[in-house]
């Protein structure tokens, strides 16, 4: 029991420490922007980790929800005068309800079948955003009205870094709350054995729907923040490649590790920035890095390192 609580606070302290430390060290707006992108991606990755890493349900369409969140803060204020903050919540609510409604039938599918169904879902969202040009601006996208807080318009990457950092910490707290509850135990249980979970009285369809919906809300909020940071949004946000990138973040960082989602997001956002010096070798190197990480840190970066550390430090712990 003590250990459980300790783990939780350690995780939170680690993330908060990292965010604050990096925030104090970052030298320029560019670094703040990259940092903000890491944190914003991490929010979506934490949500997807609940679904993929903890509940074991694959989604190849999560960028669709990122897109919904992004366009919520672009469309609602532009066309209907909804305040930006309210738009974030409306987008999140819409994503959550949509996920709940679609999740019920789709989540009956297993493994790769679920992957393809969610893939289709993501592509549908991207297509609507691309094709309904009168409202969404089409493939070239549309501008996003700036967020106004206390009368000031927030546009500096540094401000967004701290906003995203705060949001990420809250996201992790909520994720921890969930995991440390009956619903959380239920969703982790169904990952390992659906039949045993059902025998224990878990309504598997309901729990899957809930976690799908929660992860959609995370993705949507991440999308809203991304749109507000950028000030301009294109349907690429919802593209299949971004869905794949989110999954890669979760798997690289470590399925079932919330800190891992932050690390995975950091790797996939920062690595391409670092690799630009190699120009045309960039993609080749990025692919090689991903392969190498997965071969040598098979359970993902954080779980593998944690295991290695624990094994070295506390061999007596293992029997």
């Amino acid at each position, binding site marked *: 029991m003590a250990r459980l609580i300790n783990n939780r606070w350690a995780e939170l302290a680690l993330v908060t420490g990292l965010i604050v430390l990096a925030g104090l060290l970052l030298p320029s707006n560019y670094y703040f922007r990259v940092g903000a992108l890491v944190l914003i991606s991490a929010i979506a990755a934490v949500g997807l980790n609940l679904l993929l890493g903890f509940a074991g349900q694959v989604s190849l369409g999560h960028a669709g929800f990122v897109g919904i969140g992004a366009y919520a803060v672009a469309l609602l204020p532009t066309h209907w005068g909804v305040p930006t903050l309210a738009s974030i919540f409306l987008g999140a609510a819409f994503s959550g309800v949509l996920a709940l409604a679609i999740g019920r039938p789709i989540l009956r599918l297993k493994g790769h079948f679920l992957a393809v169904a969610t893939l289709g879902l993501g592509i549908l969202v991207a297509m609507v955003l691309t094709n309904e040009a009168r409202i969404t601006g089409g493939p070239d996208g549309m501008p996003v009205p700036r967020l106004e807080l206390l009368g000031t318009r927030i546009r500096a990457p540094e401000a967004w870094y701290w906003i995203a950092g705060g949001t990420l910490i809250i996201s992790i707290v*909520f994720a921890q*709350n*969930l995991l*440390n509850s*009956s619903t959380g135990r239920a969703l982790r*249980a169904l990952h390992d054995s659906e039949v045993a979970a059902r*025998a*224990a009285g878990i309504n598997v369809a309901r729990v899957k729907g809930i976690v799908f919906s*929660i992860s959609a809300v995370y993705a949507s909020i991440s999308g809203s923040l991304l749109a507000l940071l950028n000030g301009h949004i294109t349907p690429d946000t919802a593209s299949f490649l971004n869905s794949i990138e989110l999954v890669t973040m979760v798997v690289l960082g470590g399925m079932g590790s919330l800190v891992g989602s932050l690390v995975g997001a950091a790797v996939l956002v920062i690595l391409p920035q670092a690799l630009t010096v190699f120009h045309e070798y960039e993609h080749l190197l990025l692919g090689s890095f991903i392969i190498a990480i997965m071969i040598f840190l098979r359970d993902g970066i954080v779980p593998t390192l944690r295991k290695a550390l624990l094994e070295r430090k506390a061999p007596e712990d293992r029997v």
Partner: protein
Amino acid sequence: MSLLNPISLLSVSNIGISFGGIHAVDGVTFETSAGQIFSIIGPNGAGKTTLFNLISGVYRAESGIVMLGGEDVSTLPPEALAARGLARTFQNLQIFFRMSALENVMVGAHVHEKRRALSHLFGLPSTARENRGTRDAAMALLERLHLAGVTNRSAGSLSYGQLKRLEIARALASRPKILLLDEPAAGCNPTETAEIDEIIVEVAKSGVAIVLVEHDMKLVMGVSDRVLVLTQGRMLIEGTPEEVTNAPEVIEAYLGTGLPTMEASHD
């Protein structure tokens, strides 16, 4: 013979299912009541586990009826049966390997926990209270099954015997009225078997109806109130341990396949 006896906790009547034209379970009928230990034995492939899957809602019966406390539950899914007080273990372990031993048992208490995903997400005080209650109960069960030493260990790192007991603890965590145990002692050494034996008797005494599938004849004959013998999905005989042991058809059936005690454990 009045089979659908309303006093009986669990009654199964004329139940059957077939896979690919082969009758895996065919016309099985029995009933059992609170505090009783009812055992099902039979050679490999006799349909014992299939029968469990039918009773616990994993498979839906093609024919026949399952009654639970007087209610027809033949078409209900497993989670609905769990809510009505039915718990089970699995022959080939169905452990939540990514969770700790404690958490495995806590999952067992799911039916008694509130389904309020939002208050779980926000971590309201009610959730913390609920967690404490569930955790304390789970700790007590771990202790009862001699697993207190591995409380926080990942289930994936436990030994086979420990996992067998963990499944029983998880099933007990739901405070069941009926408990289906699928080979609880398989793969356990004599000491462990004796411990399980003791727990089964203790649980039955507390008023739980136990249905037991087991290969260990000593255990079965020692604890059971009634025994049912299955071969090829059909009932061979049902009666007290003495009746079954002395029945000529049982001796005949087992001569062909080797005595059940001699069978190797399953993986």
